[in-house]
């Protein structure tokens, strides 16, 4: 019965979305207040209905209702409760319900917190939001009904793919979707602005916090996925430039550009058409990301169930959404008034450069991701584009971006004095040289890695110098500086934190990519291996029975000289229902490096294959990203964005802490 209630709620939600998508926008066009007022209750009702559907599906998973096909295919009675719940979105059908739920939640947020929006804008935004909901609800109901029944019911389910039974991955999809779907807000505002033909600073003040919320979620979501790959796949890597990874990274790059260009609209009333285009493109890339992952269009190491019929539906959805919005853009955008003037060397100029570099970088990722498809269509050749391609294209484009990132915040609006700013960056320059020399002394190369370490130092010192400059640190009495720091807008602190976080993460990425040490060997019990100053001893291997798997757990003792450092327990698990083995790496972090051990198969002589990685500065990647997300949250708490800030504050930190658990 409960699954039918869920199914019915989903159908009702579609009906409500149809009303919400038509009545308010017609009301806005004809100036009928009563019609426009339909939008708010409709958005709330839609959220309530989709929540009912989501809870119904969750209930079916929790009680293992094997009359529901989706539960059969993705759950099992022996599965721990957490993974029964995460099983809801660990599959295509359920993840679409989560997608729609988050979409409805964002719509409801506009309804609740949008009290001071001009009513026609609010009505139009909510209608556009409903159009997206119509598309995805129809997709869910027509091609991937999560509540489909199966009779007779099997005794037990097929279990969730064991690789997905992991706390990191349990929360990865909700975060990622919150990011993807969050960009729909910027999209809806952009479409509404195009329909109205008016973009003003008030518009940007609304778009920016929503984009920032989405950006924080997406950043945390991508990192969570990367972190999962790092410890669960046992390959010692954290980013593989795989199409599925790129699919989430492209909206991030574009969204980051949007975040910065919206500042220019807000402060200087310039770059308006460009910002609208970025809002459209960011959400379009989120949709294309969903499409690539679910249609089997590209070969990826992460496989999802593919179905050409679904692919066709999503392609249709893409054409209507992206094609429609770009047509609207081509017709209406030329009418958008151009804004304030500025010199090339100015804060605006730096932000334009930031935008150009981010968009071009996103373009290279896009090309690399889709090139196999283009080439196959043209010549039939099968290729894959791997890390070397991105190292030669994406990375060099990031170099000037980072270089300018330290300078930009120093520049004045409209017209700035570059020589004066560079003079204030002497300290950062010295730090960069020092860091580069340090890298040469410690590791000796390669050139790009040395350069990147120098840039990371340049960025962090430059960013902190700008902050110190603002509060006159060391140039005024300390109490005076503290007073100034308190007086500084929260968004300024947020920017400092986020930019510094990128510098920290960048140092981590560079070191991990360039100076990782790895060794594979067969070890007998009691054998020791030395690597990067640490001694690894294999003490014992035990067979252990888990709730729905059996496991070989090794005990590896790490010491440095005479000092005991850590005991790691890497595992190799076998999930009998799916006959699938998985690897659980043992990781000890020293703050400066991760010591990473993976155990393989035993040989006839009783030895075990053991793979050991020394991963320098990898913890910095996670710490840096956490700083970036925190920076976003601090910025959100700014007084300028006080609308709805309490609700966002309550939501966002939860995501941030998850990223590090």
């Amino acid at each position: 019965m409960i699954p039918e209630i869920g199914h019915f709620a989903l159908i009702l939600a579609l009906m409500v979305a149809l009303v919400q998508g038509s009545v308010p926008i017609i009301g806005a066009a004809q100036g009928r207040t009563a019609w426009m007022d339909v939008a708010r209750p409709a958005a709330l009702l839609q959220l309530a209905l989709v929540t009912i559907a989501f809870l119904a599906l969750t209930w079916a998973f929790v009680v293992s209702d094997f009359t529901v096909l989706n539960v059969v295919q993705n759950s099992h009675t022996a599965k721990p409760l957490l993974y029964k719940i995460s099983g809801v979105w660990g599959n295509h059908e359920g993840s679409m319900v989560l997608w729609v739920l988050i979409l409805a939640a964002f719509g409801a947020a506009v309804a609740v917190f949008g009290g001071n929006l001009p009513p026609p804008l609010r009505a139009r935004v909510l209608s556009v939001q409903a159009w997206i909901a119509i598309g995805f609800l129809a997709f869910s109901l027509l091609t991937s009904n999560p509540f489909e029944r199966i009779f007779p019911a099997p005794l037990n389910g097929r279990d969730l793919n064991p690789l997905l039974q992991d706390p990191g991955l349990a929360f990865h999809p909700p975060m990622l979707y919150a990011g993807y779907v969050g960009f729909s807000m910027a999209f809806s505002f952009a479409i509404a602005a195009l329909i109205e033909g008016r973009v003003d600073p008030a518009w940007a003040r609304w778009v920016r916090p929503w984009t920032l919320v989405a950006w924080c979620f997406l950043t945390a979501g991508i990192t969570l996925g990367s972190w999962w790959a790092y410890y669960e796949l046992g390959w010692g890597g954290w980013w593989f430039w795989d199409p599925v990874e790129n699919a989430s990274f492209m909206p991030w790059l574009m969204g980051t550009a949007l975040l910065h260009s919206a500042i220019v609209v807000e402060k200087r009333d310039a770059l308006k058409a460009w910002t609208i285009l970025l809002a459209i493109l960011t959400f379009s890339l989120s949709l294309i990301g969903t499409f690539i992952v679910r249609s089997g269009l590209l070969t990826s190491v992460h496989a999802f169930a593919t179905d050409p019929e679904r692919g066709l539906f999503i392609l249709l959805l893409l054409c209507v959404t992206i094609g429609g919005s770009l047509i609207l853009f081509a017709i209406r955008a030329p009418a958008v008034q151009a804004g304030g003037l500025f010199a090339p060397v100015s804060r605006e100029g730096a932000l334009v450069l930031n935008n150009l570099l981010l968009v071009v970088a996103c373009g290279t990722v896009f090309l690399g991701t889709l090139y196999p498809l283009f080439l196959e269509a043209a010549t039939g050749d099968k290729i894959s584009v791997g890390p070397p391609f991105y190292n030669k294209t994406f990375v060099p484009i990031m170099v000037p971006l980072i270089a300018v990132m330290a300078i930009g915040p120093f520049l004045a609006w409209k017209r700035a004095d570059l020589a004066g700013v560079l003079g204030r960056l002497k300290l950062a320059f010295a730090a960069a040289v020092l860091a580069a020399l340090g890298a040469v002394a410690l590791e000796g190369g390669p050139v790009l890695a040395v350069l990147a370490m120098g840039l990371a130092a340049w960025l962090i010192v430059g960013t902190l110098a700008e902050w110190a400059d603002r509060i006159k640190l060391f140039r005024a009495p300390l109490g005076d500086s503290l007073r100034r720091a308190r007086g500084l807008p929260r968004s300024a602190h947020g920017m400092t934190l986020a930019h510094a976080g990128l510098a920290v993460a960048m140092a981590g990425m560079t070191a991990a990519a360039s100076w990782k040490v790895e060794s594979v060997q067969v070890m007998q019990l009691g054998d020791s291996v030395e690597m990067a100053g640490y001694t690894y001893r294999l003490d014992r291997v035990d067979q252990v029975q888990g709730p729905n798997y059996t496991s070989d757990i090794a005990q590896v003792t790490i010491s440095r000289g005479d000092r005991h450092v850590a005991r790691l327990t890497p595992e190799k698990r076998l999930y009998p229902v799916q006959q699938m083995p998985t690897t659980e790496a043992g990781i000890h972090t020293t703050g400066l490096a991760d010591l990473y051990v993976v155990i393989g198969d035993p040989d006839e002589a009783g030895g075990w294959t053991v793979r050991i990685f020394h991963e320098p500065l990898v913890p910095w990647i996670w710490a840096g990203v956490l700083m970036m997300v925190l920076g976003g949250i601090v910025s959100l708490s700014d007084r300028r964005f006080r609308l709805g800030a309490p609700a966002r504050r309550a939501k966002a930190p939860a995501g941030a802490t998850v990223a590090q658990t």
Partner: protein
Amino acid sequence: MTRKRRRLYMVLAAMSILAGAAALVLGALQSELTYFYSPTDLAAGSAPAGRSIRLGGLVEEGSVERLDDGVTTSFRVTDLTSSVPVTYRGLLPDLFREGQGVVTEGSLSADGAFVAREVLAKHDENYMPREVTDALKKSGQWRDPTEATE
């Protein structure tokens, strides 16, 4: 600064960044693509030695052997027409099995053996990677039967 001048500067900046990026991309497309080969392609000698390529097919039954050093594995990858010997030093992925599809990345050594740097297995346990499927289709093995029965 007039509006026109400003636009000129912005267009120039955009153009130079685009040109730079295009040069990088074209350069990388020349040298950094990893082409996909089937065992039959390799047997026919159409793959260059030394260059990084991908080889896909089925792991031949009974061909997996661990060498004496304990960490190098040798096996044969087949598309049911030809098979190519492969050596790989390292831990094999969890889903690596005889008779199952596999994609390996590495290069051809001078003696015709394939030295894999990476062995990729899909997370999907239900079936084999598409590249493997295509390799087998391309080897023509599954088209033979119609001719054979006529």
